[in-house]
């Protein structure tokens, strides 16, 4: 046990020019110990104006989105389109290991449009790893297309099969493609850091939101030649060979997820649920008399499923999510609550693992509870370091580190 371990990426410096789609990348790298410097235009990132705001008061330092995904970073302001700003950025690039941005190739704020294309960055520092997370990638027929989560989800193929058959395909109300893309970019950066150990050279990593959204389909698109399945939506359930099975059930105070899926790993859970229902006097013969060990969801008929599901629906209606999930954990039922943030924050499992952390935010005068470390290492060193930076919070110290005067830059309108 090394108590002094400051993280696997200690000593790595990242210049983080991302907007919303890539906020999580720098957060993860910083929470592994990297020195991540968020670089914003002097007027601030657009996400700072995004509601909701802490305690409901609109202010550029109080956006929940900004606070949630920019923890553990330092923050500076820099207009790199002005000559003095470009010189400051050059000096930063010489001290950095990674430059990360999320502008698509056609977007005006892309680094290349400020004159910092890959060749110039590598002329400044050949060891620099440059990573871009964009909607569709840097080149190709959609390379210049505009995109955000909604269109990346659409073209990525994970939206078409999500939803109810009688309605439009639907996305998660928070931007899932950004999360997949951000972790992918962080992984890519750590891979390139590893490669640089032997090559001595940085390289460019091109990450696509559209492309990362293919993997969640769990290979089913590639199985199309064998199955003919194009991804038609079935709502909250799944379709076996002969029947449709519900998977989301209203209970007393919300929803739980449970399905009559078969397979050796799942059947003990169905048997345990029937016992639990029976103890509550709610297991009719259609449940009690069935030989569950021989159950196969590919052979059961819709009529049988309907009869079983009537009993399940009645049982779940009378229980709360918390009761059902506690029983599921104690008895290995494969049942899960459709948690809201409140229920997640109150989870006994997350509490036992000290997952949530109270972060005192002196700059804003608040202490808030945040999701904590995304993983636990035997060495320690993973976790939230500090609240998201206020606008230009670290100008003085960061510019001093490269021999520049933040005040002078500010006077020139550069910082």
């Amino acid at each position: 046990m090394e108590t002094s371990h400051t993280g696997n990426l200690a000593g790595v410096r990242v210049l983080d020019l991302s907007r919303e789609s890539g906020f999580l990348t720098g957060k993860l790298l910083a929470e592994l110990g990297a020195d991540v410097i968020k670089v914003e235009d002097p007027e601030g990132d657009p996400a700072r104006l995004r509601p909701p705001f802490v305690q409901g008061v609109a202010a550029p330092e109080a956006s929940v989105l900004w606070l949630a995904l920019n923890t553990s970073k330092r923050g500076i302001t820099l207009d790199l389109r002005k000559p003095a700003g470009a010189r400051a950025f050059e000096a930063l690039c010489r001290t950095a290991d990674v430059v990360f941005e999320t502008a698509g190739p056609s977007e005006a704020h892309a680094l290349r449009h400020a004159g910092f294309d890959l060749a110039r960055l590598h002329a400044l520092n050949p060891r620099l790893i440059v990573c871009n997370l964009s909607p569709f990638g840097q080149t190709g027929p959609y390379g210049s297309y505009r995109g955000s989560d909604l269109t990346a989800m659409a073209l990525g193929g994970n939206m078409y099969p999500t939803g109810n058959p009688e309605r439009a395909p639907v996305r998660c109300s928070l931007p899932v493609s950004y999360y997949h893309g951000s972790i992918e970019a962080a992984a890519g950066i750590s891979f390139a850091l590893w490669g640089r150990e032997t090559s001595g050279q940085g390289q460019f990593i091109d990450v696509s939101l559209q492309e990362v959204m293919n993997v969640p389909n769990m290979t089913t698109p590639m199985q199309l030649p064998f199955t003919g399945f194009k991804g038609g939506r079935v709502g909250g359930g799944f379709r076996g060979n002969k029947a449709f099975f519900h998977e989301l059930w209203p209970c007393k105070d919300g929803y739980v997820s449970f399905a009559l899926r078969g397979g050796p790993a799942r059947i003990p859970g169905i048997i345990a649920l029937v016992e639990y229902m029976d103890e509550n006097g709610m297991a009719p013969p259609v449940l009690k008399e069935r030989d569950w060990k021989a159950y196969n969801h590919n052979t059961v008929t819709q009529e049988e499923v309907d009869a079983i599901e009537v009993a399940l629906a009645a049982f779940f209606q009378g229980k709360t999510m918390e009761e059902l999930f506690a029983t599921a954990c104690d008895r290995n039922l494969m049942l899960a609550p459709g948690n809201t943030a409140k229920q997640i924050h109150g989870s006994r499992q997350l509490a036992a693992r000290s997952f949530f952390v109270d972060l005192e935010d002196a700059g804003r005068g608040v202490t808030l509870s945040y999701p904590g470390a995304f993983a636990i290492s035997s060495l320690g060193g993973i976790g939230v370091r500090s609240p998201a930076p206020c606008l230009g919070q670290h100008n003085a110290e960061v510019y001093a580190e490269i021999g520049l005067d933040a005040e002078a830059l500010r006077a020139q309108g550069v910082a």
Partner: protein
Amino acid sequence: MTEQGTAGEAVRSTAKPRLFDGLKVLEFGGGAAGPLGTRYFADQGATVIRVESKQRPDFIRLLRYTPGDPAGLDGSHMFAMVNINKLGIALNMSHPKAIGLARRLVDWCDVLAENFAPKAMAKWSLDYATLSQSKPDLVMISTCLNGQTGPDRNYPGFGGQGSAISGFNHLTGWPDLEPLGPYGTITDSLSPRYVALLVASALLHRRRTGHGQYIDLSQVEGGVVCLSENLLTYTATGELLERIGNRSRHAAPHGVFRCAAKGDDDDRWIAISIQSDEQWFALRRAMGDPAWATKPDWSSTAGRLAQVDQIEAAVGEWTRTKTAEELMRKLQAAGVEAGLVNNFEDLLNDPQLRHRNHYREVTHPVIGKHLCETNGMRFSATPDAVTRPAPRLGEHTSEVFQNILGLSEAEYAELNAEGVFQ
């Protein structure tokens, strides 16, 4: 390192070096969440040995299995697609002689990855506390639904439960209907990316210090960290976020609209996201500036958000008579963010994914030619490569034990006869 290429023939056929050439990874577990994580390393040149058992096969080998199927346990498309580029061995872990062999494989590897329920590795004395005594530079990662500690660590979950517990289901779907699991998986597909990041960072640390480490990745926690906005909205404002279909709280119109049928397929859709007033005017022009769209109130996001139902109904009427493909081209050319809602057939023919060489063809000895996919990142200097199909169950057992661990043919035959490699 010397073992590269010894197990089986033609391990690498690419000319370019890959990032993890020479790295040795040992993998226990099944499903997708673990195996997709190690695939990142296999695609970049690492030798990944997947330990399986004929006694308790990986459940994704059984997904389409029917007794008497001549393909046996090697006919699963999903297994074949997620385990590209790996070597596979069969080792009956309930045989007393298997544990010692597994320990020798651990001595061989740089990285040990597993995604069993928490008790399995400890039962075989393959837990980090035991292994690190003789191998302090071991990098080991465990990933299961709830993590390795806590009262609910043994809760047996698949991806569907992970999505519900970490909050994705509650946020997915229509406000007047039940929450939906996003299709496929969320936590099972976020976790492999975390595994790639965490293992690479641990290798960097080991290179500098010589120290290994053990990493406990809870799939639920990884998901909750992604949804930090959901959690912090609650802890900072008391508000609970709800599912809102395809709407945005910050942009309008923002939806998915039905398009003209394509042949007899009337399930064609276009996603349109208007992120600025400038894009709204671009959409208006693309629609031919119809009278209904020229309301002055709608020149601002706030005005459009206030009457989004009305606007989206009208946009939907306009899209209904045009094909999704035509609309995407036309709207993007006009500066409007629009995207075809790709079904699986569209996806396999998507020109952008083709351009990025997302899907690759590989030939499996049992399944035949099939597609596999790669991850979402492209490296300028060290491209990934698909060099071999997924292993048949136990395909590389004799090569691995004889060529890598150095068992003699006689030793191998004796152990085989005792059922160790079942």
